[in-house]
C-alpha cells in the first residue's frame, strides 16, 4: 500500500508542477489544486498507514491510527479550498479586465503584443 500511495503522490505532484508551468490562468490553478491534493495525501501518510483501526486512544483498543494527521489534513483542505476559490475569482477578474486568460494579463490596448504572446506559447 505504501508503494501505491507514494506513486499516487508522485503522479499528482508531477502533473501539478507541469500544469503550473503553463501560461494560462486556469491550468495553473488546476495544477495548484493537484499539488494541494498530493500534499494532503502526504500529510495523511505522516501518521503511518494503518487499515481498519479507529483514530481513538482508549484502554480497550490496542490497534489504533494516529488522529493528528487527519485533523491536520482537514485544516489543510479547508484552507486550500478557500484559497482556490479566491484565486479563481481573481483569475476571472483578470480575464474580464484584460480580455485574455494569459498569466501576464496584458492589457487590451496592447492586443497586438498579446497575440504575439499567444503564438509563442
Amino acid at each position, binding site marked *: 500500500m505504501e508503494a501505491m500511495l507514494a506513486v499516487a503522490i508522485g503522479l499528482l505532484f508531477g502533473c501539478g508542477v507541469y500544469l503550473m508551468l503553463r501560461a494560462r490562468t486556469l491550468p495553473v490553478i488546476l495544477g495548484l489544486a493537484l499539488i494541494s491534493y498530493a500534499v494532503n495525501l502526504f500529510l495523511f501518510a505522516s501518521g*503511518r498507514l494503518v487499515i481498519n483501526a479507529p483514530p481513538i486512544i482508549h484502554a480497550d483498543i490496542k490497534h489504533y491510527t494516529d488522529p493528528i494527521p487527519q485533523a491536520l489534513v482537514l485544516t489543510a483542505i479547508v484552507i486550500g479550498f478557500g484559497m482556490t476559490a479566491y484565486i479563481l475569482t481573481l483569475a476571472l477578474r483578470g480575464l474580464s479586465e484584460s480580455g485574455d486568460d494569459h498569466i501576464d494579463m496584458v492589457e487590451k490596448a496592447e492586443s497586438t503584443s498579446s497575440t504575439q504572446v499567444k503564438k509563442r506559447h
Partner: protein
Amino acid sequence: MNHSPILPIIVPFIASIMLLMMNATQLSWQRGVSALSVTLLLAVSINLLLLADQSAPLVYALGEWQAPFGIVLVADRLAALAVLTTAVLSASVLLYASGGFDSKGRHFHAVFQLQLVGINGAFLTGDVFNLFVFFEIMLLASYILLAHGGGLIKSRAGFAYVILNLAGSAVFLIALGLIYGTLGTLNLADIAIQLKTVPASEASLVRLSGALLMTVFLLKAAVLPLSFWLPHAYSAAGAPVAALFAIMTKVGIVAILHVQMIAFNAAPVMHGLLGSWLIVAALVTIVFAALGILSAKSLQSLVAWLILGSAGLLLIVPSLNNVVITAAGLYYLVQSAIVGAAFFMMAGLISNARGRVGDAFVMTTWVSDNKLKLGYFILAATAAGLPPFSGFIGKLMLLFAVKESVMMPAIWAVVLIASLVTTIALVKAGSRLFWEMPIDGDPLSQERLPPNNKRQHFATFGLIAISLLLIVFAKPLSDLTLRAAQQLHAPEQYIHAVIPHHADIQRGVRP
C-alpha cells in the same frame, strides 16, 4: 493563567467579525469599530511587552490543554516587541486608510483586522502547525487587501503573488508532514527536545524537513532567489496596504529566528543548516535591491525595493548567529518596519499632491507643500542610513556587531556601497519629484488637485515622529532588543516555560 498573550489575537478577531456583520452600516461606524479595536490592540500589546519583559516567556495553553499535546501561545520578548510594532503600524495605517482609501471597495476594515490577527498570531504561536494556519490567515487577508481598489495592475500583481504563496504553502505542509512523521510533534519546544535524540536512520529526513521549513520562511522574508514577487506586489498595492505589508517580510524573519534559535541551534542534526550559504544570499539580496532602487520608475516601487534591501540586511542575523548581532538586528527590524511604512504613506501623499502623474519620476508641476519636502527628506535620510537618523543607528549597530565575524569585509563593503547607491537614488528621486519642471509651461498645472487630506497627513507625520523618537529612545530600545536576543540565545528558558517536566510526559508508541 494570565490571558494577556491571546489578547492581541482575539481583539482584532472579534472586531473583524463585528465589522463583517456591520457591512451595511455607514462607513463612519465601521471606522469607529476598527479604530477602537486598534486602540485596544495598542493597549494590550504594551501590557504584553511589559509582562514579557519581566522574566521567562509567558505561556498560554488554549483550553488549559498543556503542551506538547495542546496548542500554546508563547510571548517571549521578541514576539511581544514584534506585536507592539505591528500595533503602532496598524494604528497609523488605519488612520491613513480612513482618509478615503477604505471607501474604494467593500470590507476593507474587516479584512484589515483579519490581517492583524494573522500577523500577531504568527508572532505569538508556539507550534509550527499554528504558524502555518496564522500564515494562511495573514496571506488570505493580504491577497484581498492587495486587490483593494481594483484595476488590472493589482489583479496582475495579485495573481502572481497568490500563486507563489500557495506554492509556498504546499512546501510548508510537506515540511510539517516530515516533522510530524519523524519527530512525532509539532510544538516548537517539543521539537527542540526531540531533535536532540534523532536516530541516525531518520537524520537526513529531519534535516530535509528543517531545510524545507527554512525555505518557506525565506520566501516570506524575500531572500534573493525567492524575492522577485516583492517589488511587484508591494508597488501595486494601495499606499496604506503597502505600509501594512512593510511588517510582513518581518514575519518571515521572526519565524526564522524563533525556529532557528529555539529548536535548531542546539540540535546536532541541524548543524550548519543556514550558516554557510545564507550570508551570501543575504548580501546578494542587498546588491539586487540596490540595483532595483536605482532602476525604480516611481516612488512607491522605489520604497518596495528599499523594503527588500532591509530584508536582506536582516537576514545577516540568522546566518551569523550571535547575541550582539541579533540584538542589533532586532533594533533594525523595528526601525526599518516603521520607516518603510511611513515611506509608503509618504509616496501616497506625494502622489496625491502631484495629481494625474502620481508618484512616477516624470517632470510635472511644483509640489508646493513644504511639509512634504521635509518629510521626504527625513525619510530618505533615515532609509539611506545617514546620521543622525534612526536608520544610521540601526545600520551602525549592525556593522559594529559583525566586526568579529570572518565575513566582516564583505558585509561592510556591500552594506556601505548599497547605502551609497541608495542615497544617490533617493537624492535623484527627490530632485525629480520636487525641483525639476518642464521649461515650456505645463499643461498639467491646470489640473484641480483634491484638498490636503488631514488624516493622511497626520498618520504619515505621526509615523515619522515615531521614527524620530527611535533616535531619542535608542538606548532603552536597544537594551530591550539585547534582552530579547539573550532570551532567544538561551532556549532552555523558552523550552522550560512551555514544557516544565518533559521527562514525565508519557508518549504513546506510534503505530
